[in-house]
Structure formats: structure tokens, C-alpha cells
């Protein structure tokens, strides 16, 4: 039981619970300043409060819309540009240096610019999520297509497949595999983009609430929000993993 790999999660849960208990007790004993590190019970209460008075929903809605919108757009445009650049050398010449620069800089520095261009509403957050995701997916697809297994291409040609058959049976499945293997990173990027966009200028969203919590020195609210974002992203990770497992089932031995 104590070292059985099947019960890893039990041991992790136990350790986590013990840690929380120590934290709570230390807080109650006055060893932690609640101004900076509120007790777990306080954080829990703040979290419950967010949901019970319904205040959280418009913020969740805003962040989800921005992150998922940016994710979908970023994946679509990233695939499109990646495929075109991989197939048309002229486009690759123009696009690759731009993408390399965009890839090298911390793209969140573009957030204030997007606010000026697109306002403090949803659009500027979608744009930031989008640019974070699109560059990642572009490189995934661009380098991926150029590394498509030549032997598979030749196999399809020698079986009588035409250009469309190559796209459908070799290129598309390859692209799907690479995009899916980067899907979790893309999800993380999308939420980063949404939240950072909301820090910069917004009237709604989890990032906005976080910066509100900061300006009011409300550490309990801050911890509650961090916890909430963590759970949200973990849930989406779970979905992404399911999708990946199903679509890449051929890849398992």
C-alpha cells in the first residue's frame, strides 16, 4: 500500500491535505500574516462567495470567450499559414523571418498595443491569445510538413494516389498529430493571453478581477482566483488529453 504505484494519487492527496492542515494551523496560531498569506479556509470562503453571489459568471464568461476564441482562431490561422508556407517557398521566405521574430519576443508585450488598436473590450484579449497560439501552431505545422516521412509520400504515389490523396492521407493526418501534441501548450498560451490582456485594460474577466484584488490588497480573493484558473485549465487539459488519446490512438503500442 505504502509504495504501490496504483495508489500514487492517494499518497499525493494525503500529502496535500497534511500541507493544507499545517498551513491552516500555522495561520490560526498567528504565524502567518493574513494580509499576505490568508488561511486556506479564508481562501475557500472567498471562492464560495464568488460563486454564491453569482459575481464570477460574467468574468468567467469573458475570460473563456477570449481564451477559446483566441485558441480556435490561432489554431486555424496557424495551420493555414504553416501549410501554405511549407508548400509555397516564396511565402515561406516572407513569413518565416516575421514568425521567427514573433516567436523570439515575449508576445505579451503586444498587449498594450492591442488595447490601443482594439479597445478594452473582448477583441484585444482575443487578439493577444490568438498571437500567442498562432505562432506556436505555425511553427508546429511548418516544420512538421517539411519533415513528413518521404517514404509515406512515395508509398501513396506508387499506389496510384494523386496530390489530393497525399494531402488527405499523409499531410492532414501528420498535421493533426503535431497540432494535437501541442494542444495542451496552446491551451495554456490561450489562457495566458486572455488573463494578461485583462490585466492591462479590461472591465471584466478573471485577469481583471485579479488586478482588482491586487489593488485592494485582497490576498484571499487573489488566491481564490489563482485556484479557479488552475482548475479551469486542468479541466480543459483533461479534455485535450482525451481528444489527443482518441485521435492519436494509432500511436499507442
Amino acid at each position, binding site marked *: 500500500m505504502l509504495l504501490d504505484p496504483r495508489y500514487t494519487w492517494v499518497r499525493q492527496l494525503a500529502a496535500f491535505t497534511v500541507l493544507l492542515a499545517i498551513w491552516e494551523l500555522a495561520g490560526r496560531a498567528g504565524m502567518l500574516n493574513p494580509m499576505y498569506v490568508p488561511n486556506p479556509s479564508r481562501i475557500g470562503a472567498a471562492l464560495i462567495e464568488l460563486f454564491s453571489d453569482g459575481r464570477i459568471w460574467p468574468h468567467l464568461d469573458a475570460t473563456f470567450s477570449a481564451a477559446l476564441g483566441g485558441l480556435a482562431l490561432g489554431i486555424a490561422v496557424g495551420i493555414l499559414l504553416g501549410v501554405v508556407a511549407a508548400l509555397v517557398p516564396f511565402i515561406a521566405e516572407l513569413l518565416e523571418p516575421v514568425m521567427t521574430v514573433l516567436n523570439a519576443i515575449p508576445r505579451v508585450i503586444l498587449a498594450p498595443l492591442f488595447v490601443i488598436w482594439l479597445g478594452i473590450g473582448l477583441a484585444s484579449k482575443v487578439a493577444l491569445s490568438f498571437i500567442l497560439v498562432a505562432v506556436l501552431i505555425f511553427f508546429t505545422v511548418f516544420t512538421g510538413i517539411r519533415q513528413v*516521412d518521404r*517514404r*509515406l509520400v*512515395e*508509398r*501513396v*504515389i*506508387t*499506389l*496510384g*494516389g*494523386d496530390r489530393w*490523396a497525399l494531402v488527405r*492521407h*499523409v499531410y492532414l*493526418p501528420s498535421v493533426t*498529430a503535431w497540432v494535437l501534441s501541442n494542444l495542451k501548450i496552446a491551451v495554456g498560451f490561450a489562457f495566458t493571453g486572455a488573463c494578461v490582456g485583462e490585466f492591462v485594460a479590461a472591465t471584466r474577466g478573471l485577469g481583471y478581477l485579479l488586478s482588482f484584488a491586487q489593488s485592494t490588497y485582497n490576498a484571499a480573493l487573489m488566491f481564490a482566483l489563482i485556484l479557479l484558473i488552475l482548475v479551469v485549465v486542468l479541466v480543459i487539459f483533461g479534455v485535450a488529453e482525451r481528444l489527443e488519446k482518441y485521435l492519436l*490512438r*494509432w*500511436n*499507442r*503500442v
Partner: protein
Amino acid sequence: MSLAVGDGRFVSLVGPSGSGKSSLLRAVIGLQQPLSGTVETNVAPAQVGILFQDDALLPWKTSRDNVALGLTFNGMERSKALAEAEAWLDRLDLAGFGDRFPRQLSGGQRKRVALAQVLAMRPKLILMDEPFASLDAIVRARVVKDVVALVEHESISVLLVTHDLEEAISLSDEVYLLSQGPRARITQRYPVPIPRPRDPVDSRTHPAFAPLYAKLWADLSREVDHRAEAA
């Protein structure tokens, strides 16, 4: 260079590495343009199949879908192609493996799927580029035996490229020796007087086998030495 593969004949091409054996096959099937000269076949391109060194199966398709692939390219209805594929898997001892993906098959099984993929196209000529090199001895003997039986039964012509002399002799009706590249040419043609139908393992003990092997070995060694001197 000039080389002919008669109807239903099994012809091997042996030669040192770098003599352009694979390039020749690729030129025949149109994956590569010959630098000069022409390739003539009296069969339509669709009737020429190729078996590569690697099985080159699409990893995201089940073995049944892989076998059906070429059939659908040639206009066969999908449901019919899948039934046909299943029948070929049966013939190659892969009944029940139709739903497996290539990663879930052994090397020998993958080779059989690749073979079914080519045979399903009902080719008149199959080009083989050292297709058995990656298999271990026992598996290899079994796959080779089935290949010979099927090829004889369907009277398919085969052009096999290999540097395994034993394999070349035991399988072929004729063996051609290619000189060391670059500018490789065919130096000699050796008819193999072992009767058909043949068992590729038994034919190694046929009285004609050992002398032919010795001769081919000597000639091939001379080609390689030749090269070493020139260098």
C-alpha cells in the same frame, strides 16, 4: 545497361553498395527520372507494384485500410475495397489483424500487410528493394516462402534488388550482377537451373546452388576489389 524481366519470371539484381540498384527500381516505377536512357515496360504503370525496404505503412491507418488504400485510388468503391483487403489479409495469415494499427504489429506482420497492399493491386510486375533485410531469420524465411508461393501462383514477374546472394539464387530464375558504381553496368547474367515450384529453403540444397553461389561470390568480390584498386 539492358535488363529484361520476362512474364512470370523472378529476376534478381545483385551488386555492391552504391551501384545504383535502388535507383534503377525507382526509375522503373517513376519516382526518379533516369539521367539518360529510357525505361520500357509492357505493363501499365498501375500494374507495377513496389515493395520497399521499410514497410512504409501509414501509421494512422489500420492494416485493412492500408491494404484498401491503393484500391480506392484506382476507383474501387470503399466497401468493396475493404472486403478485398480483408481477403488479402486472410491469404497472408493476418485474419483478425485488420483492425490493428501498424504500431501494434510485429515486423513480420507489417511486412505481410505491405505485401498484401501491393498484391491487392493485382500487379503484373513487383519491384522489390531488399524488402526482407529488416526481418530476423525465421520470420524472414516464412515471409519469403509465402512471397514465392504467391508470386508463382499469380504468375507475377518480380525484379528483386538485394545484396544477399543466397536470397537472390534461391528465389530467382535469373540473377544479374551489377558492377561497382558510379557508372555501374550489368556485367553478367546467370540463369538459375533450379526447377519451379520451389521452396526457397530447400532450393539452397539443390546441387546447382553451391557452384552458382561460388561463381557469383567470386565475381562480386572481383567487382569490389576492382573498385578498391581504382580508389
